[in-house]
């Protein structure tokens, strides 16, 4: 893998970590520091924009000049990218999951449909597996169309389903880009960038899936169930966008997928990852929120 591809992966990872931080801040209603350039943007949003600009400038230069680096230098560069990434995943996935974005039923619907679309386009499943996957997706879809506030126990099960969907995406993702020589894979720098961003997001949630599975065991004994009631507000949001706008966004995502399938503009997995990141980070942002509580 050449220098530009490594830099694209690193840039994707850094941008995604900043986005997680920004989403977490915004969802916790922390007062953000105002931006230097525009009062409509927070300082962190401006930093993300700056990092994007600078990193793509550096990637473009690295791609243009393509400096002949030795295998040892490239391996060292990969280590410098991977070691802090794994530290981040361990700390924020297992020890203190404060950067996990809060999701609602609508986000879970989008993530479920995208993950299942990817799965069904790759493999054919037996009817019982199909039923096991479609029934929860249908249940979440119905919940996303209602305005009823759901019980924390049910929220925990929905969140578990969301983590499973993200894990399905991990299994589909082409992490071979990290291990195979670039010449063997027909991936663009943009694919590497999205691979880095989606990789850190999906792996963060996959690590948290292990912890959340253990947290779910609190539901077994009635005396422990209050723990789940206390934890769910950190992970689940009760605000949803209006029903029609949500259905419009779903339709838009469908059109994007169909167009990409027809045109082959971006690698299929990259497009699915982009849609998931959009849903998690931006689904509620540009629209008027409907307060449900």
């Amino acid at each position, binding site marked *: 893998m050449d220098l530009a591809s490594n830099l694209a992966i690193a840039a994707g990872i850094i941008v995604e970590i900043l986005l997680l931080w920004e989403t977490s801040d915004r969802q916790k209603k922390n007062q953000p520091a105002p931006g230097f350039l525009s009062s409509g943007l927070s300082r962190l949003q401006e930093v993300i924009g700056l990092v994007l600009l600078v990193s793509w400038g550096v990637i473009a230069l690295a791609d243009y000049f393509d400096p002949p680096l030795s*295998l040892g230098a490239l*391996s060292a560069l990969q280590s410098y990218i991977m070691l802090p990434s794994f530290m981040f995943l361990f700390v924020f996935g297992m*020890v*203190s*999951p*404060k950067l996990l974005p809060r999701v609602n039923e609508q986000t879970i619907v989008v993530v479920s449909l995208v993950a299942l679309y990817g799965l069904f386009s790759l493999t054919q499943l037996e009817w019982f597996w199909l039923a096991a996957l479609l029934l929860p997706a249908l249940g979440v879809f119905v919940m996303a169309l209602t305005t009823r506030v759901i019980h924390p126990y049910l929220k925990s099960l929905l969140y578990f389903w969301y983590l499973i969907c993200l894990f399905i995406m991990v299994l589909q993702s082409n992490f071979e880009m990290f*291990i*195979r*020589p670039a010449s063997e894979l027909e991936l663009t720098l943009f694919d590497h960038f999205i691979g880095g961003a989606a990789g850190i997001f999906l792996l963060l949630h996959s690590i948290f899936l292990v*912890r959340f599975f*253990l*947290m779910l*065991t*609190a539901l*077994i*004994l009635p*005396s*422990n169930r*209050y*723990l789940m009631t*206390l*934890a769910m507000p*950190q992970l689940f949001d009760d605000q949803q966008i209006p029903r029609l706008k949500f259905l419009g966004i779903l339709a838009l995502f469908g059109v994007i997928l169909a167009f990409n399938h027809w045109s082959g503009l971006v690698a299929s997995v990259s497009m699915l990852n982009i849609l998931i990141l959009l849903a998690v980070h931006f689904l509620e942002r540009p629209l008027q929120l409907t307060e449900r509580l």
Partner: protein
Amino acid sequence: MLQKLETYGKLADAKVDFVEGHYAALSLVDSNGRSRFIRLDFRYYPREVIAAIQEGDTLTVIYIDAIISEGENAVLAEYYDEIKATPAIPADAWWILGISWLVIAIQPQFVFLGMVKFDLIMTTQSIFQPKGA
């Protein structure tokens, strides 16, 4: 490693350069005619097979024919199917995992650390401290 062996695995004869503790260092010529040094981890093989491996022996191995991470690993061709069939998690570990899970199911407070305030976690009415105790 198994996934990489599945993708890039090639059969070759390798010479044992030296044996040290839990592994042997081998050398072979790869499919591009380059000389490669590889490592044979002993953990997958019976004791008598390991004992029979001596410096200077020639072994038939499956190695990873690509310059990638873990590419230095190889397995004995004769035991490749057995190694592939070895469960990722040994049966003994399932017992330990099961018992650990049972403990967490009874006292799950610590898996909520970092997510729920510590004093709220500790107000739990556990099965060992019934309400009002």
